[in-house]
Structure formats: C-alpha cells, structure tokens
C-alpha cells in the first residue's frame, strides 16, 4: 500500500470517478438537447397541438334568411318548434346501440320504433330514405313536432333518454301565403354532407357540421346569402371536457333575406289556374285518341316584360316543400319519387322540355325576313305541301290563299313555313349539304337563345335543343349502334324508323327541315326560354336573363344589395320586323287562333298579344302551348298531353291576366281588385329588429263558372285532325 495518495484513492478509483462524472453530465446534456429540440425547434407544432387539445367549439346556428315576395310576404321563413334529436355518438355507447332508448322514445312520441330508428341511421349507397346524410356527430332530428308534453317527458327523465334532447329550435317553414306554394322555385334544404364540408373548407364560406344546405331552387342559388354565418364560441376545456374559460367568440351573423320579384298573390293565381286548366283538360276527349286528355304535367311562367323578372312560376304536379323540413319521411319520399306522381320535384318551367309547336313560328318568320323574304310579301297557304310524294298537311287542312307572313302567324298557317323551310334546305344543298351551309332557320333559333340556358337564377335549367345538322350528326353517332341493332326493313313503325335512322340518321332530310319550320320534330324548348323570347318581342328586343331574386337585404334591413337583371342578347331582328311580328301577334289575340279566348278584352287600354301552339309528340297526346304578352307582362303556359294551345291553356292565362289587372270577363277594370296593374317597383322595408311589414294576403277566389267571356267567335272551325 505504498502508492496510496493523500486523498486515499488509487488511480483506478480516480479514473472511475471521472468516467462517472462524464456519464452524468452527458445525461444532463442529452436532456438539455432534447428540451431545446421540443421547445425551441418544434415548439410551434406542439403549441398548435395544445390549442387543438383544449379548445372545443360550440356552434350557434345562424338563423337562415327568409325568402320574401315582392311586397315582403314570406314564401320561406323560420318558426320555432320543439325539436327532439338523438345523438348517435351517445347512443352508440350504449350496449344495444340505443335500440332501447329509441324504442322508449318512439313510445313517447307516438311513432313506430322502426320509423325512429330509420331516421337515425346513416345514409349510404345501400340505405334508402329516410336516413341521415349529415354528420354522424351532429344531433339527428327525430321529430320537429314534439308537443310541450312530450318534450317535458323526455327532459324530466334524462336517465331514460341518454343522448336524446328536446329543444326549441328554429326550423324552416314554407307557409304558402295565399295558396302560393312555389315549391319547385323555393327548393329545399338538407344537411351538409362530409364532401361539401371538405370542398368548402378553404373558401370564404366554409360549412359547419350543423349546417343545412339549399339543395334546389332559390334555397340553392342564394344559399350563401341566406345561410349567414354560424356563430362559433371556442371554449377552453379540461381533459374531461369541462369548460375552464372562453377563448374566442364569433357571434352568429343571421342570414340575409332574399326579396324576390314573385308576387305571392299572382303566384297563387297561377298555381290555381294551371291546376284548374289541367283538371278541365282531363274532362275533354282527345279526338285523335278517343280518350280524355291525360294532362299529366304543366307549367306557367309570368315575367315582367320589360325586365325579365319572374312574377310567378308554377309547375304541376307540385308538392309541399315542408315535407323536407327535418328530414323527409319514407312515405313522403316514396310518394315524391313514385312513377304515378310524375316527378313533382321537377320545375317544369325551367326543366320541362317539349317541342314548341306553333309558338315557335316567330323564329322562322324572323329567319325568313333575315333571309330576304319580305314580311308583307305574298306567300301561298295551301292546305298541304308535298315533297317527293310525302304530304305535309296544314294542321287545319285548310287553305288561306296567298297571305303575308304576319297573316301566316295569325292563322298559324303551316304550309307557308313548310315552303320556306324546304326552300332554305334546298339552298343549303339538301341531303348533301354544301360546304358551310347557311342553315338560316337553325342559326336564327340559336340567336333567339334556344339550345342554351336563359341563365335564370335557379339551378338545373335545361337547354332544350335546336336540331341542326351538327346535332343530327352527334345524335346519330351516339345512337347508330342501337338503331342498327333494332332496325328492321319492313318491320313495325319503330323498327322501320330505326332502320332509316341507322342508314341516314345523320342526314338532314327534307321532312326534318319541314317539321322543324313549325317547331315540331326534334325541336325542344323550355317554357322559360319561350317566355324570355316573347318578353323580348314585347320590350323592344332585349332577351333578359329571367331573375327571381330582386334584392338581398341584411337581417337588420340596413344593407340592401339589389340584383339587377342581366341581358343575354338582343333578338336577331330589326325594329320594323319586331313591330310587324308584334302586330301580327296582336292579330292572333283579336282575330286569330286565340281570339275566341279574349272576348271582351280591353285591347285598347291593355294591348294583348298571343300565339297558340299545339305540338305533336310521338305516342302521346298533343302538348298545349300558349304564349302571350302585354306591355308589362309575358305569360307562357304549357300543358303536356293537354290538347290545343288556346283550348287547354287559354282560359287559365286569361284568368291570370284578369287577376293581375283587376278585369272581369267583360273587360271592365276594377283597379281596387287588381293584384298588380304595374310591376312592383319598390322593395319591402325590413325593420332594424328584423320584422317585415308585409301586407295581408287573401287567397285567390277564382271567377265563378257562370262568368264566361262574351261569346265572340268560339273556337275556330273544329279541326279535322288537329287545331292550332
């Protein structure tokens, strides 16, 4: 033990102590480094995570804005109802997945347990309605019509009803003022889907899980304005979700009100009269088929002629939009989609496509003038026109001698247009067209806005179809395989048609051109397109985009954003031609095919213009068309399988005009009874507290059956085949 130093330690221990010290401090350095890494280098990431951790959002839904008519009467608003909802997340925690709770709930609500469970299940591709297509984390409404009694029963026994709430909630309502249901125009709401939330995430109007979204109609077009902004309060919560402080508060911004140009009274009249006309048509026997008219669908559009604003728009069959509120029931959904109900969800005013028949004739008239035929020239109107052995009859099988184009419109002479259409077809080279054929009749139709949207402020508008050579080629390429498969030489009519189509369906035949010249054949238009055109003839030639929205007014009435109608073009005619056509259409109402429906009309004070149309559809009864306008209003009505234009739609259109102008059948005007002698120019006032001073509305009283127009001429000579 000679080498023991003063400290009493060998070098081995000394070295070991240094090793220990180095180890200890490397541990401390490791901790320091890791601390730096977490707090300084990645600190941001973790503080974000901490924020998400302890913040819970509570959503206060914004009250959706009302949809008002031109005078402030609500067509869609909200009411407070006792809503019973079920939280899926809570129910799924229970052993039987909430079955017991829902069964008990059904008992309290007097519903079938299965119905309640169906409402709470989630929608997927295999689950039929009813089902919940909103977020699974959102309470699902079971009923919107709980009584106070039922709500109390649920609230008093929370232990029996875990996950069930009964709260007064603002619920959409479609009150149908004065019978103005306006269903397809208003549209409906349904809960936002996950896809939509993801899509709208980074836009300036993101969705919340609780949001309802406009699915159709005005609710969809003006969804952003009506929806407002849900309020979000962010609470700081602890690990058990208990609130320990309020982090942020974005108050709810209530949705703005949409003032429309629709007049609830006129809308009510239009809906009533459309339906009455269809009911009446079903009593008439169709001479072609020998059975009563089916009158399975119809539409009417009332526009302000000078602006294109929509005063009324009705589609029949219709439905009550309130069925969508709070989730549609299985029964209602089945009813709405059943074949017999004939798609009541469809807005036929903008989505119903049919051949226009003779109301189309203003277009070939314009085309002829533009092609160089003088308007007041002399055109033969024989009873039929034949091309290579094929005979095209005047629908009345009646000749009128030599007449002008204006007279041809008045008496709706087909053969004049057959000849013009045929001549232009020959000029373009007939079956074997020249390079760049003029196709003037077709080009003019495009210039009138056919085959394109009118840009009405409703979703889902159909374009119709102008069957020009390009379309024939496209259509043939798409269908020739099918035609060539089913076509058979010398078979049935359909087989023969397919056979011909297979061979030369891409070619514009003389018959096609002739049919097209009077708006038959493959031509398709929508009522709103025709209303736009006739309004343009009335207003000097401007084709307005039909608009229903007139202004968006903030909930407190302070911010008013007017919606100015936009035009999508001018009619392709000069002023002189427009006046001549307008005069001819006046002649239709006073002397021509519509005159018998306008007996006693005060033509001097309120000049009436009209055009009737009866379109043939293969295998179906004829479509009735009636297009009319005064200086202020344009009304177009159509009834599918309803008979003739003036016959089926005439009285209804007359009654609508009578109601608007306060006229009786004798043509005497009582302005106190007039609903809207001039289009509504002012906007309704919305008070700062959100209340709206809307005038009262009385339901429409239709004229008594005895109140018939003075007999003028009666329907023009009963047609042998078809009348127009």
């Amino acid at each position, binding site marked *: *033990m000679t*080498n*023991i130093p*003063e*400290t*009493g*330690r*060998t070098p*081995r*221990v*000394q070295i*070991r*102590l240094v*090793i*220990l*010290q180095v*180890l*200890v*401090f490397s*541990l*401390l350095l*490791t*901790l*320091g480094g*890791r*601390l*730096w890494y*977490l*707090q*300084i280098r*990645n*600190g941001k*990431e*973790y*503080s974000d*995570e*901490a*924020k998400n*951790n*302890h913040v819970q959002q509570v959503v206060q839904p914004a009250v959706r804005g009302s949809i008002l008519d031109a005078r402030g009467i609500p067509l869609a608003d909200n009411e407070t109802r006792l809503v019973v909802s079920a939280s899926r997340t809570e129910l799924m925690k229970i052993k039987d997945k909430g079955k017991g709770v829902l069964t008990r709930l059904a008992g309290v609500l007097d519903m079938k347990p299965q119905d309640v469970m169906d409402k709470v299940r989630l929608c997927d591709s295999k689950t039929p309605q009813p089902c919940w297509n909103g977020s699974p984390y959102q309470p699902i409404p079971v009923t919107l019509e709980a009584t106070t009694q039922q709500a109390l029963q649920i609230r008093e026994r929370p232990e029996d009803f875990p996950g069930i709430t009964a709260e007064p909630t603002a619920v959409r309502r479609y009150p149908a003022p004065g019978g103005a249901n306006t269903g397809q125009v208003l549209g409906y709401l349904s809960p936002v889907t996950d896809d939509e939330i993801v899509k709208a995430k980074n836009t300036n109007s993101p969705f919340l899980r609780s949001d309802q979204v406009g699915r159709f109609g005005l609710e969809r077009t003006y969804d952003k304005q009506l929806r407002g902004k849900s309020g979000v309060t962010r609470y*700081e*919560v*602890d*690990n*058990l979700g208990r609130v*320990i402080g309020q982090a942020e508060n974005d108050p709810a911004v209530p949705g703005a009100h949409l003032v429309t140009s629709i007049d609830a009274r006129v809308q009510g009249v239009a809906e009533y009269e459309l339906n009455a006309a269809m009911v009446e048509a079903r009593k008439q026997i169709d001479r072609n088929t020998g059975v009563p008219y089916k009158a399975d669908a119809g539409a009417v559009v009332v526009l302000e002629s000078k602006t294109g604003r929509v005063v009324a728009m009705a589609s029949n069959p219709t439905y009550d939009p309130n069925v969508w509120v709070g989730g549609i029931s299985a029964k209602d959904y089945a009813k709405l989609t059943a074949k017999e109900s004939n798609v009541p969800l469809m807005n036929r005013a903008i989505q119903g496509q049919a051949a226009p028949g003779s109301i189309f004739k203003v277009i070939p008239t314009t085309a002829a003038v533009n092609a160089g035929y003088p308007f007041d020239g002399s055109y033969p109107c024989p009873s039929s026109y034949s091309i290579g052995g094929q005979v095209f009859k005047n629908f009345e099988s009646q000749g009128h001698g030599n007449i002008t184009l204006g007279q041809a419109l008045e008496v709706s002479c087909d053969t004049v247009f057959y000849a013009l259409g045929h001549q232009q077809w020959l000029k373009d080279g007939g079956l074997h067209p020249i390079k760049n054929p003029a196709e003037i009749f077709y080009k003019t139709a495009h210039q009138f806005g056919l085959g394109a949207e009118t840009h009405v402020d409703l979703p889902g508008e159909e374009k119709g179809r102008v069957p020009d050579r390009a379309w024939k080629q496209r259509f043939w390429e798409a269908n020739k395989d099918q035609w060539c498969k089913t076509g058979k030489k010398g078979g049935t009519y359909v087989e023969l048609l397919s056979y011909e189509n297979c061979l030369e369906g891409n070619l514009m035949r003389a018959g096609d051109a002739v049919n097209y010249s009077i708006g038959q054949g493959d031509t398709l238009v929508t009522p709103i397109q025709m209303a736009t055109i006739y309004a343009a003839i009335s207003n000097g030639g401007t084709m307005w985009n039909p608009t229903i929205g007139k202004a968006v007014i903030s909930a407190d009435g302070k911010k008013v954003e007017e919606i100015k109608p936009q035009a999508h073009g001018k009619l392709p005619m000069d002023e002189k031609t427009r006046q001549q056509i307008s005069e001819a259409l006046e002649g239709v109402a006073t002397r021509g095919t519509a005159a018998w429906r306008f007996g006693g009309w005060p033509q001097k004070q309120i000049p009436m213009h009209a055009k009737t149309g009866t379109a043939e559809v293969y295998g179906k009864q004829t479509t009735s068309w009636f297009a009319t306008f005064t200086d202020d209003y344009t009304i177009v009505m159509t009834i599918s399988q309803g008979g003739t234009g003036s016959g089926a739609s005439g009285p209804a259109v007359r009654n609508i005009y009578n109601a608007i102008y306060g006229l009786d059948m004798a043509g005497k005007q009582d302005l106190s009874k007039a609903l809207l002698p001039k289009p509504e120019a002012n906007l309704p006032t919305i008070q700062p507290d959100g209340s709206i001073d809307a005038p009262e509305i009385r339901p429409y009283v239709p004229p008594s059956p005895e109140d018939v127009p003075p007999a003028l001429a009666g329907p023009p000579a009963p047609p042998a085949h078809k009348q127009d």
Partner: protein
Amino acid sequence: MQTANKFSVSRYAPERGPVAKLTARDSVLRRLDWPILLSALALSLLGALLVWSATRNRTTLNQGDPYYFLTRHAMNTGIGLVLMIGTIWLGHRTLRGAVPILYGLSLILVLAVLTPLGSTINGAHAWIVIGGGFSLQPGEFVKITIILGMAMLLAARVDAGDLEHPDHRTVVKALCLAAAPMGIVMLMPDLGSVMVMVVIVLGVLLASGASNRWVVGLLASGVAGAVLIWQLGVLDEYQINRFAAFANPELDPAGVGYNTNQARIAIGSGGLLGSGLFKGSQTTGQFVPEQQTDFVFTVAGEELGFVGAGLILVLLGVILWRACVIARETTELYGTIVCAGIIAWFAFQAFENIGMTLGIMPVAGLPLPFVSYGGSSMFAVWVAVGLLQSIRVQRPMSA
C-alpha cells in the same frame, strides 16, 4: 494528554461560544457545501410552485383546498431540511456504524409492503398508508441503506489500508446485501425503483475500485435480466404497455400513449419563456396525468418554458457537479462510494423522470428529486444531501 473541560475538542484552542463556533473559519456552516444546499432548496421551492400550479384545479385530489399540495410540499421540504441537519449532526461515519440497524429496518419496511399493510398506488404495490393523508414508500429509503451498506462493506478493508481494492469476496457480500431488498421491491412490483437501485449498485461498484470484471459483469447481467424479465412475462400488462407506448406513442393516443403524448405537447408548447405560471392550458386543463408527481417537469416545461425547465437541469447539474467534487476530494473510500452512489441515484432518476416526459425514456413511476410531490422521496433526497454535506464537512481542511 489530559485537559480541562473548557478546552475545545481539538484541544488547541479555547472553547468558543455558539455564535463564534458557527462563524469561525473552520465552522460547520462555513464548511457546508452551499451550492448544493442552495440548489436543492431552490429545486424544492420551484417544485412547490409547480406542484401548486398542477394541483390547484384538481379538486378531486386537493380536497377543495388549492393550497393543499403547496403547503404539504413546503412542509415536506422543511422536514427534509431537518433530516439533512440531523444527518450532518450524526455524520456519515456514525451512520456507518448504524448500517446494520438501518438495513434491518428498511428490510422490515419493504417486507411490510408485501403484507396487507401495503397499498397499491398507480399499479405499484409500493406504499404503506400511515393514515392522516400520509403514506410511506420504503423503496426510497432502501436506496440510502443500499448505498451506506455497500459502502461500508466495500470500503472497510481498503480504508483500513489492508487492500488496494475490494476483493471478490467483499464484492459478492456487497452485492448480496443490495440484492435482498431489491428482490423484495421487484416483487411489489416497483420496477422503476429497481432500475434506480441497479444503477446505484453500478455507481457504487464503479467508485469502489472493484475489478472491471464486476462492473462489466453487472452491466451484462442487467441487460440479460431485462431480457429475461421480458421473456418470462413477469411484467404486469401495464408495464409492458408503457414500453410499447414508448416505442410508438401514436399507438393509442387515448390510452397508454396518452401520458407521453400529452406530456410532450405540454413541454413542446412552452417555447422559450413558457405560458407563465398558472397559465398553461395543458396544465390548467389537466391533460397530463400524475402531473404533480412523476410528470411535474411538464408544468415547468409548459409554464416556465425552456428557461424554467433549463433552470431545473442547471440546478440538478450544480448538485451533481458538487457531489462529484466532494467524491474526489474526500480522503476515505467510504465517503467516495457514498457520494458516487448518490450521484448515480440522482443522475439516473432525474434522467429517467425528465427523459420520459421528453419522450426519450419509457414511462416509469419515478419522482424527480426535490421537485416532485411526495414525502418519502423528498425525505430520502434530503438525507442524501445531508450525507454529501457530512462527507464534505468532515474532510480535511486542506482539501
């Protein structure tokens, strides 16, 4: 040489008054290691604040009194100080003589835990509930007795000048002495404490100058033992889960990985300066479980930031650095071994505790010395400080 009673023990100076005794150049107060004492005190007081912040909202724990844990932590610190003074007064050499008694006492206590007297807290059956809100964790005191006992055995013949290094027989004896209480603690099972004890034994062997073979052999058997424990399935499920969650914290963020994840979020969100005391959302929201005890470091990380959490590391560093100095400067191997055992204990326990909150070590229920709430741990570490001070005070003046 016989002298009168009025002379001091050193017999070279006259008897001094108590004030003069404490202020004299060779007084105990002057010879104390003040950096260690002040650092330990600072850590304890900082711990009191952090414990307070973590518990002031935890109404289920604090019995409605937001200051409950604050006052208790302060009280524990006070008792700890008294224990330190007592230890200094007794001196580590006196305690060497008391090792058989202390060892026997601690064995009885850990055995008592296995009897119905013991209670299970957080999955570890390591506690004796005394009543009145107090409970004892004998495992903490076993750490001290292992250090003292092993030091006594290993240093005896070296300090006597018989041997240069402890021989194999002595090492075996010392290991057996440590193994008995460790085995019992393992049965509880309090794996965290066993891990610390293994590291203590390693530190003690290292400092004792025992043959390299022993050090390497112990390391190897430690690893083998860990593998064996894993393979034999001795571990409870909660322990296995802790390791699994350490390996992959995203495994089950709501379950086992929750602790680690939330702890990491709390610390990470602190940034440089932290959110301020009582202002941490993770802490106020009670997202981190066991935050006043095992996860107390997360409060510092979140509310005091890198600066505050770093301060804890620095203070621990000061204590460990001073302990190393004392270990080197003391003249007898006994003191050196005791110091080394304490260094290994503090260093590893702090590393494990902070490391698990930072996600670099698996979760084990170990307190952070001085800072975590808990009487037994607090008392033990202050006794350890007393031992360090005693070794320093009793070294030769020249050193």
